[in-house]
C-alpha cells in the first residue's frame, strides 16, 4: 500500500522542481534585494529598530525631491493621456486612411522604447540652449524661448521630454480599448436620440474610464521610476527622487545608509500602489472587452 503513495509524492516533488530555477531566480534577484532594503529602512546604522528614517524623509531636500518627481510624473502622465487619447481616437474612429493607423502604431512601438540617455540627447539637440529649434526660432522668428522663461533643464522641459515615451505608450494601450467600443452602442444611442456629446459622456467614457484611469497610473509609475533621461538631461540640477537615490548609492551624500533604504522604500510604495491599482482597474475594464 505504501508504494503508490510514494509515487504520487515523487510526482508532486517533480512538479514543483520544474519551476524551482525560476523561483530561485525570483527570490535571489527580485525579492531578497527588495526585502533587504525594506527591512533596512526600519533600522538605524547601529542595528536597532526605529522609525527615525521615515521621520528623516520629511527634511526639506528629500520632500522637495519627492514633490518634483510627483509633479513631473503627474504632468507627463496627464499630457500623455490627453494627447495619446486624441491620437488613438483619430486612428480608430476618425476615418483616417488605414496606412496611417499602422504607421502610428508601429512608430508608437518604437518611440515607447526610445527612452534613456539617447532621448535626452535628442531633446538637447532640438530644444537645448544651442538646439536646432531654439536656433531657428531665435534667428528667423526673433523669438528666443530661453529669454521667455523656457528652460529644458526644468520641470517643463523634463515633462516635455518624458511625453515622448508617455504618449506612444498611451496610444498602444488605449487603441485596443477604443477598438472594443462596439458600433451597436453608438447606433443604439443615436436611435434613442443621443447627440455625439451625450454618447461620449454617457456611454463611451463610463466604459472607458477604468482603462483611462489604469493607464494614467501606469504612465505615472513609468515616469516616476525613470532616471537615465533626467540624469543625462539635467545632470543633478533637477533633483528628482531617483537622482537623489543615485547620488546616495554612489557616495552616501546623506551620510546615513538607512535613510537611503527609506527613500527606496518610498519609491517602491508609490510605484507599487499605482501598479496594483492599474492591474485591478484593467481587470474591471476587460469585463467590457469580451
Amino acid at each position, binding site marked *: 500500500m505504501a508504494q503508490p503513495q510514494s509515487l504520487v509524492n515523487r510526482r508532486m516533488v517533480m512538479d514543483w522542481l520544474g519551476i524551482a*530555477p525560476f523561483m530561485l531566480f525570483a527570490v535571489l534577484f*527580485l525579492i531578497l534585494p527588495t526585502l533587504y532594503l525594506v527591512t533596512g529602512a526600519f533600522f538605524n546604522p547601529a542595528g536597532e529598530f526605529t522609525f527615525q528614517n521615515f521621520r528623516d524623509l520629511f527634511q526639506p531636500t528629500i520632500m522637495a525631491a519627492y514633490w518634483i518627481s510627483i509633479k513631473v510624473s503627474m504632468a507627463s502622465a496627464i499630457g500623455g493621456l490627453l494627447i495619446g487619447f486624441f491620437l488613438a481616437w483619430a486612428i480608430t474612429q476618425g476615418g483616417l486612411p488605414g496606412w496611417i493607423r499602422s504607421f502610428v502604431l508601429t512608430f508608437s512601438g518604437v518611440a515607447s522604447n*526610445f527612452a534613456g540617455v539617447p532621448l535626452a540627447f535628442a531633446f538637447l539637440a532640438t530644444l537645448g540652449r544651442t538646439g536646432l529649434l531654439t536656433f531657428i526660432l531665435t534667428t528667423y522668428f526673433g523669438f528666443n524661448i530661453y529669454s521667455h522663461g523656457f528652460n529644458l533643464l526644468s520641470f517643463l522641459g523634463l515633462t516635455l521630454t518624458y511625453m515622448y515615451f508617455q504618449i506612444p505608450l498611451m496610444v498602444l494601450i488605449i487603441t485596443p480599448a477604443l477598438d472594443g467600443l462596439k458600433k451597436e452602442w453608438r447606433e443604439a444611442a443615436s436611435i434613442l436620440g443621443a447627440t455625439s456629446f451625450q454618447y461620449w459622456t454617457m456611454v463611451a467614457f463610463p466604459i472607458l474610464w477604468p482603462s483611462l484611469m489604469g493607464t494614467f497610473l501606469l504612465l505615472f509609475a513609468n515616469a516616476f521610476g525613470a532616471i537615465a533621461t533626467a540624469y543625462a538631461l539635467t545632470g543633478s540640477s533637477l533633483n528628482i527622487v531617483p537622482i537623489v537615490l543615485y547620488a546616495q548609492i554612489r557616495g552616501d551624500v546623506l551620510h546615513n545608509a538607512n535613510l537611503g533604504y527609506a527613500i*527606496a522604500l518610498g519609491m517602491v510604495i508609490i510605484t507599487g500602489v499605482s501598479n496594483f491599482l492599474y492591474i485591478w482597474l484593467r481587470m474591471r475594464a476587460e469585463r467590457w472587452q469580451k
Partner: protein
Amino acid sequence: MNGKKILAWFAFAIGATYFIIPLIGTFIFSMRMRRGELSFDAYRSVFADIQFRETFSYSILMAVLTIVVGMLLVVPTAYWVRLRLPQMRPVVEFITLLPLVIPAIVIVFGYLRLYNSSSFLPFTGSARGTDMLLVFSFMTLSLPYMYRSVDTSMRAIDVRVLTEAAESLGAKWTTIMFQCIFPNVMSGVLSGAFITFAIVIGEFTMPSLLNRPAFGPYLQLIGANKAYEPSALAVIAFAMTWASMGLINLVSRFQKAARARA
C-alpha cells in the same frame, strides 16, 4: 470632409509635429560638426572612438547572454506552468510583473548591499561576478516582456498533446524541450529577444551603479563632454530601436503566414 475627419487630421498633425521635430533636429544637429556645411564627421568621430567599440561590443555580449540565459529560464517555466502547475500561474505571472513595480534603481541598490564582497554570494567581489550580476539584473528588466511574448505564443500550441506525442515516441525531456517546445514558440522567443535587446543595449542605471563599462554609461559620459557626437549617437540608438521593432513585426508576420499554410 466632415468635422470629425478634420479633427482627426489635426490630431495626427499635432502628433507628427511633436514626434518628428526632435528626430529631424537631432539628425541635422549631428551633421553640423564641420563649420558652415553638413557632414557626417560626428559619426566618423563616434565610430573611430575605441571606447565606443569596446562599450558597444560589451553591451551586445551582455544582451546576448541575457537573452540566452533568460530564455532558458523563461521557456521551461512557462511550459511547466501550462503543463503541470496551472494553479501556480497567477503567482508566476505576478512575479514576472514585479520588475515593473520595483524601479530598476531600487533593485540594483539591493544587489549592491546584498551581494557585496563580504556576503554569502560575493558577486561584486570580482569583475566576472559583477558581469554575472549585470546579466541577472538585465534579466529582471526584460522578464515581463520575455515571459509575456513566450506565454502568448505558447497559448497557440497545445503543449499537452505535443508532450504526450513526444513521450509516446520515447523522447527524453531535453528532446521534448529543445526539439518540440522551443521550435514551436520560436516567434515568441524571437520577439522577446528583440525587445530585450532594445531595452538592454542602452541601459544606464544598472551598469553604471555596478561600475561595468557598458554602452549606457558611455553615452552619458559622451553627453557630458562632447557637442555633436551625442546627437549622432541618439540617431544611431533610434535606428537600432527601430530595427528591433521592425524585426519583431517581421517575425510575427512570418508566424501568421506559417499558420495560414499549416
